[in-house]
């Protein structure tokens, strides 16, 4: 599994460059869509396998007479897409139940993640967006093969969907896709791709990793058409929030900076740091990147510490998913330091239920940390969110 294979354009220090981008399409160029359907997505859910990553999941499902919902959900998305867009659709490794598509990918399927990756490679340079029916595992596989950084959007069809790339329904995914392809500017934002370790989860232990980030269409539908709304600028708000945060940083404090696209933009303001790792900064500069639990323990010892995090993925996790390096032991070694969370108000509004979640693996600690956290949403702005274990 290639963890860092997604290419993203330009690593500018400015948030609006680092996190959001616009791909101006030439007027004459015809838009094309890639459609990836993972034939084993979602199978493991009904089989109580906590996911469908096991290599033999297809065979197990066949033995049980189970059929994946992914082709059917892809057909629903395609139908909604076709209502307003007649662009060519390249589809593989299996085809949707209904709808006209051009098949791509291997002639003979292996029944593994290789099929998905082969399709993604075949789509390179051919499509404007990859719409996929699957879950977190499928998103990871796509990113691993997506060397040209094609934006991706998920049709929710998997067991695990912690990543930020999933639309709320197949129909919504289809409509967002149509809107994206017909937009000459094709605006995107970066979101995190998370995945749980299924073997650990089956053993009763939750362990999610932040694998990479991917570009996904920026959903502006609400903002663009609201007649009474002013010109809200979530990108500018976040950029200014980060600038204000940096301006308020104390010389004597060691800052432990979590992973994620927003945190990367903060680290870029401090001389640059890692996208997926936990870094530390002091005196206005990142002085340690991609540190593991032991390295963090050593760095926080005896220091005045603040932890800075963002909401990772699409499910409201702030601690314990994708940033396990900041472990209960690290928090205790740092003397239970204050935790600042930075996250845009739009992203918070999209959470259902309206709360954030922590899961450090230490139930007692989670209980202590739960409560109301003021999340930094803009310059001079905080929104209080209930944090639950």
């Amino acid at each position, binding site marked *: 599994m290639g963890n860092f294979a997604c290419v993203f354009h330009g690593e500018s220090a400015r948030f609006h460059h680092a996190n959001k981008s616009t791909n101006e399409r030439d007027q004459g160029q015809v838009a094309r869509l890639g459609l990836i359907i993972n034939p084993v997505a979602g199978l493991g859910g009904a089989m109580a396998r906590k996911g469908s990553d096991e290599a033999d999941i297809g065979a197990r499902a066949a033995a049980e007479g189970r059929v994946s919902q992914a082709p059917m959900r892809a057909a629903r998305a395609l139908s909604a897409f076709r209502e307003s867009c007649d662009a060519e659709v390249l589809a593989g490794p299996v085809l949707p139940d209904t709808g006209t598509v051009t098949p791509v990918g291997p002639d003979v399927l292996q029944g593994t993640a290789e099929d998905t990756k082969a399709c993604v490679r075949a789509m390179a340079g051919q499509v404007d967006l990859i719409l996929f029916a699957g879950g977190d595992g499928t998103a990871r596989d796509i990113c691993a093969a997506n060397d040209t950084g094609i934006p991706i959007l998920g049709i929710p069809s998997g067991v695990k969907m912690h990543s930020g790339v999933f639309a709320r329904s197949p129909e*919504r995914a289809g409509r967002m896709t149509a809107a994206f392809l017909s937009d000459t500017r094709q605006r995107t934002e970066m979101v995190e791709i998370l995945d749980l370790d299924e073997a650990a989860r089956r053993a009763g232990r939750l362990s999610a990793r932040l694998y990479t980030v991917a570009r996904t269409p920026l959903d502006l*539908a*609400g903002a663009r058409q*609201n007649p009474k709304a002013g010109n809200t600028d979530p990108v500018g708000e976040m950029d200014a929030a980060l600038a204000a945060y940096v301006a308020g940083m104390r010389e004597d404090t060691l800052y432990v900076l979590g992973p994620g696209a927003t945190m990367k933009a903060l680290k870029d303001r401090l001389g640059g740091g890692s996208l997926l790792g936990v870094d530390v900064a002091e005196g206005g500069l990142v002085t340690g990147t991609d540190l593991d639990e032991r390295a963090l323990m050593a760095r926080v010892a005896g220091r005045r510490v603040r932890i800075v995090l963002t909401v990772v993925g699409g499910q409201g996790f702030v601690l314990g998913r994708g940033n396990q390096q900041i472990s209960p032991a690290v928090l205790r070694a740092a003397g239970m330091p204050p935790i600042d969370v930075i996250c845009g108000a*739009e992203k918070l509004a999209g959470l259902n239920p309206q709360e954030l979640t922590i899961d450090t693996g230490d139930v007692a600690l989670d209980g202590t940390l739960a409560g*109301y956290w003021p999340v930094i949403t803009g310059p*001079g*702005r905080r*929104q209080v*969110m209930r944090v639950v274990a």
Partner: protein
Amino acid sequence: MTAPIKDYLKRSNGYRAAKWSEPVVMEMTGSGRRGVVFEDAPAPDLPGKAARKTAPALPEITEHDALRHYLHLSQMTLGMMGISLFGTCTMKYNPRIGERASLDHLKGLHPLQEAETLQGVLEMYDKFSDFLCEVSGMDQFVFQAGGGADAAYTHACVTRAYHASRGELQQRDQIITTIQTHPCSPATANTAGFEVITLSLEENGYPSLEQLKSVVGPRTAALMVNNPDDMGIYNPDIKEWVRIVHEAGGLCFYDHANFNGVMTRLRARELGFDACMYMLHKTFGAPKGGGGPAVGAYGCAEHLVPFLPGPVVVKQGDGYALDTDRPQSIGRVREFMGNAPQVLKAYAWARAMGAEGLREAADISVLANNYMDKRLGEVKGVSRSNPGIDVPRMEMTRHSVEQVAQDTGCSIFDISMRMTDFGIDALWLSHEPFLVAEPFTPEAGELWSKEDIDYWIDVLEHVIGEAYSDPEIVKTAPHNAPIHQLTSALDEPGVWATTWRAYARKHLKSMAAE
């Protein structure tokens, strides 16, 4: 209430908005066409450089051309002529007599006149202040703020001055609000230099006391909230909220944007608030819309009066004077005495209504909304915000067509545009951020009759039916309005021009080149 119309939906099948092939007035020009010319009109005596050397590029048209042109344009106005249940805006009829009164009594006056010669206006300001003090329990009202947001800003500035006078401004740098309070409260608090702490909604439809307590402390400067909120839910803990904030040393401001359903039923001061705001152009019957003149009447209790923007109208002997000697005042938030014509219209409306009238209007608006709420609950695909909460809603309720959008692909925008084909003004959706997907928020107030409300719901039901049977007709709407859907986004600078010069530069040149 408006008049009943029988079989409205059936009759409206033939509805067509006026659609004239009206050119831009600049295109109508014809050499030598003109209106009346006064031969002996004096040439203006302008200082050298102020006089232009060439004539302005104005169209040459007859008086009749001009009248006909603008009449046609007025007939193609989008909205404000059909049934408008534009929530959070409390759409009301603005009696013509108010218009007449402000013309007759104010057109000959100038705000720079000596106060001795403005006694009528000052008396009106004083009496209206008394009236609103009675309504709110406050001790003084001022009418300078040019709208609700301006009044919120006034409060943010008063908060700053109040804490500065006590030497606590450095310490008290946070203002607390809720996610469902109008965005102008956090915005103006930020503008005045405070950090904003926004509380999130919880299961009851409002933030819990525990959440409030988690952020109240020595840094708290003020609480700025509305109640009920736009979802129509009244926070019954509000007295306790005020007590908690007061105990920590903060001020409490009641944004009365949603006052219509509680007029005469509660007083902000009795709930403990230090200050409040009414929108005269919404709740109090003065015209609104189009960003025109508005008034945010700001009232406060005695301990904040010294900080009010001035000058303040005061009684002096048998008459009235403008008190300008106010050393602790925040200064001005607007020039002169604010929008006096709007104050006069609102005063006329309020006096005509009286206490009884206000109470009746409040009750009707709550009754009308609950009637709507019940009927909307029976419409396929329509759901209510906070569906699990069964407390009665006040004068408006937020609903959602998320189910319709899921099933048919027709969004609330599509449905709203299709409804205009039946003489319904475009819907009000929601303030941002959208906590409810595909939202709409109707507010009937006391104006609209049961027949109008029924017609509005009938049209919604009809359009949702179309969404399920023929979604194309909904998605391509409006069909009967003066203009149809825009063909490109409004943020395409190459396409859109908002002035004739820009239009000529962007389009006429290229047309000439072809």
